[in-house]
Every structure is written in structure tokens, then in C-alpha cells.
């Protein structure tokens, strides 16, 4: 069956370091991959979208990679700050999208310690 795996354990990173979060998937051939941030008690907020033919995407301190051979996406936050502490969700969509094409991972809780 199709599966999306994100670190279920919380990730503790010291302020100023680079935080790297992993999203692995099996039995999927996604055409698009998205990352969201979710704060406690709030809805997810979109961060970045990357297509299968793109290796890397950047936005300010954020960088996403998408390796369709390894079936993995890495999400990096450089120069991390305590305000980056949140749960980060990856989401996959099939080729052609479709309204039903987005499936979410369970998220990784990131804690940036001052």
C-alpha cells in the first residue's frame, strides 16, 4: 500500500544550525510534493511546492529537494530560529493532480532550542 513516512520523533536542533527534515514515500509516483508548517491548534500553512522534474527549490531560508530515485524529499531550514519550532508536513500528489491527489504525511515536530 502507499505510504508516506516522516520522522515521528521530535527533532531538536540548536538555534543557528540547519534543520533537515525527511519525507520518504513508497508505492507512489508523485508528480508534486508540498511542504506545510502547522502550529499547535492551527491549520497547516503552505511553504513550498516542488515538481518531479525539479531537483531543488528555495525560498528565503528554506530549501526542498526531491529525489524520485530515492523516493525522498529533504526539507532544510538554515540559520534556524526558535520561531521555526512547529510541526512540518509533507504532502504528495500524483501526476495530473486532481482534486483528490494530495496525501499528507503525519508530520515531524521540530524544536529549535535557543
Amino acid at each position, binding site marked *: 500500500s502507499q505510504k508516506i513516512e516522516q520522522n515521528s520523533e521530535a527533532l531538536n536542533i540548536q538555534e543557528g544550525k540547519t534543520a533537515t527534515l525527511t519525507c520518504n514515500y513508497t508505492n507512489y509516483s508523485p*508528480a508534486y510534493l508540498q511542504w506545510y508548517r502547522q502550529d499547535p491548534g492551527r*491549520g497547516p500553512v*503552505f511553504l513550498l511546492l516542488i515538481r518531479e522534474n525539479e531537483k531543488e527549490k528555495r525560498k528565503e531560508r528554506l530549501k526542498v529537494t526531491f529525489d524520485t530515485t530515492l523516493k525522498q524529499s529533504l526539507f532544510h531550514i538554515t540559520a534556524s530560529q526558535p520561531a521555526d519550532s512547529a510541526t512540518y508536513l509533507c504532502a*504528495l*500528489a500524483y501526476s*495530473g*493532480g486532481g*482534486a*483528490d491527489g494530495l*496525501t499528507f504525511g503525519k508530520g515531524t515536530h521540530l524544536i529549535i532550542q535557543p
Partner: protein
Amino acid sequence: DVKVTQSSRYLVKRTGEKVFLECVQDMDHENMFWYRQDPGLGLRLIYFSYDVKMKEKGDIPEGYSVSREKKERFSLILESASTNQTSMYLCASSPGLAGTYEQYFGPGTRLTVT
């Protein structure tokens, strides 16, 4: 800024009651979605709609129905609330196909069924 609003942040209902959760978006988006989010299970799609009066089942539609009479409004209905429907309910909208466009989420409704 896109705004997605949900009718209640917190709701407490009794078993067997009919429950209506309302969602409104102000950006003329075609697609709207209802998810529920539970600890350890992540975001799961209940229903989605890609046009007025159109609806499609998601991964867990049992016990729920939806209504989309106007483009900006998408309602989730629990026909007869049960305790296993206690959850955080999140509405989202998207301007196009789910994979190729980001989803904008509302703040969520935390529903408790007693």
C-alpha cells in the same frame, strides 16, 4: 490574502446529534476540502468538491456528508454524531488541481462528541 474561515473553533455535541460544520473561503477557489486530524493518524481527507454541487468521497467518508450550494461555502455534516468522530476538523481551499496548487487551510474546529 486568502482567507478560509470555519464557523466554530470549539464545539461540543452529544452522541446522535446532527452536526453542521461550515467553511467559507473568500478567494473564488474552485476546490474545497474537508479533513480530520487525529494524533498519530495525521490529516485524512473526508470529502472534497471541485465545483458547486459537485462532491467526491475522500479516504474516510463514512458517517459524513457534505453540501456545496455556493462556490464560497462548503459544509460538512455529521448525520448522527458518534464519539469516534471527536477530532480536529480542517477545511481547505485551492485555486486548482490539488497537486499543482497549494491548499489554504482554515483555523480548524475542535469537535468533542460526548
